[in-house]
């Protein structure tokens, strides 16, 4: 069985790496130049955080951080499925960015008092950088929610879709009970998930955006992850609107077709010339 500390760090690292890669896809394509800069910079931050987590894992296991990031098979990644979804439109991008960064903030708040002596200070550092991501996401949510009807509708629809999948961020990682007992993480995923749902509901409410899906999420406090590990059927690489349980299984290595193209792109340099240096 994987060391619970390693399993926890890989979940964190893979979330940051994979979503960081998605953000980087806006470089050169964002709707305006300032957002091109913003998403490129946020991507760089997230990938930097991933690198720091992979380095911690490498210290424990003797592995190589680059191999961990880029040299694993698809089923070995432990990111939440939310993070691997294609960017879609600007509404989906903002909805996911906002949900992810709020979820991550709650997780980091807990991890700052991890019993692991190096992880706590690293998380303190990361939180100082992450506040800019929250600022960015909150600013955009406010702007679009107060803007014209079409943008507001697209944002609200995307939040509905991304919210269901964002709960997959709180799927327990392998060995979580042991990690809790050891104090590697002081708060369980299910407690973090409850905090998240409450916070999202409050914030959406304050912006006048729909919150019906959050009350549903609070009722169903026990979430069930599909155990099949099946991939979702795909037509020409397009995905249909995900149903509620599509967002789960990421922590156990279930990957969707959206991950395939991302993985091919992200790891192509490493696979072509392993050990290449800049």
């Amino acid at each position, binding site marked *: 069985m994987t060391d619970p500390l390693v399993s926890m760090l890989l979940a964190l690292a893979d979330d940051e790496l994979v979503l960081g890669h998605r953000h980087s896809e806006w470089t050169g394509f964002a709707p305006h130049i300032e957002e091109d800069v913003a998403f490129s*910079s946020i991507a760089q931050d997230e990938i930097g955080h991933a690198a720091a987590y992979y380095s911690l894992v490498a210290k424990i296991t003797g592995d190589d951080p680059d191999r961990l990031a880029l040299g694993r098979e698809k089923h070995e990644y432990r990111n939440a499925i939310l993070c691997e979804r294609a960017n879609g439109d600007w509404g989906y991008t903002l909805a996911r960015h906002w949900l992810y960064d709020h979820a991550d903030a709650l997780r980091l708040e807990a991890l700052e008092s991890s019993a692991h002596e*190096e992880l706590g*200070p*690293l998380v303190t550092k990361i939180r100082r950088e*992450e506040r800019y991501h929250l*600022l960015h996401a909150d600013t955009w949510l406010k702007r679009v929610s107060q803007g014209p009807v079409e943008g507001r509708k697209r944002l609200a629809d995307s939040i509905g879709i991304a919210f269901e999948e964002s709960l997959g961020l709180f799927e327990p990682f392998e060995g979580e009970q042991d990690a809790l007992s050891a104090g590697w993480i002081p708060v369980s995923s299910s407690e973090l998930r409850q905090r998240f749902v409450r916070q999202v509901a409050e914030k959406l409410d304050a912006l006048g955006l729909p919150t019906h899906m959050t009350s549903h999420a609070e009722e169903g406090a026990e979430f069930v992850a599909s155990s099949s590990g099946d991939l979702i059927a795909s037509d020409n690489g397009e995905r249909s609107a995900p149903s509620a349980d599509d967002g789960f299984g990421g922590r156990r290595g279930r990957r969707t077709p959206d991950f395939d193209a991302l993985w091919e792109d992200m790891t192509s340099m490493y696979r072509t010339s392993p050990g290449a240096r800049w």
Partner: protein
Amino acid sequence: MSDVATLEEAVWEALAQVPDPEIPAVSVVDMGMIEAVAVTESRASVIVLPTFTGCPAIAVIESDVRDAVAAVPGIQDVEVQTTFTPPWTTARITNEGRNKLREFGLAPPTGTGPVLIDSIGLPRFAVCPFCGSKNTYNENPFGPTPCRALYYCKDCSNPFEQFKPI
């Protein structure tokens, strides 16, 4: 013992000549990136704090620090360690470093230290490094490198960058 103290000073002097690769006007010492220097006989160990977690210059800084210290007469062996304990913050930039940033055309970080995560929001303005005006606004909390934010000066009509407070 006095020899070692002198050697330690020599190491600090050498480090004061190592530029930040992204902002060559300031040294790694001005930036507060050197947490500690220890010299035992001819062996020096240096602890470096990266400014931003994802700073792509970390490897370059490590190797520049190693080269500079290795060139100090009397030092045979150099160990460079990078750590996030304690976390680097913009409060570590020295006053001299702040002046050099301004001369370089980069507004120094405002405030005396890191802003807490729950007090979200950037300072309303940064002081324009070109004309000294406070009549400026933040155009983007992100910039061309992880450590920079973009501002605009309404008095001299220059865009400028600020070293982001963290």
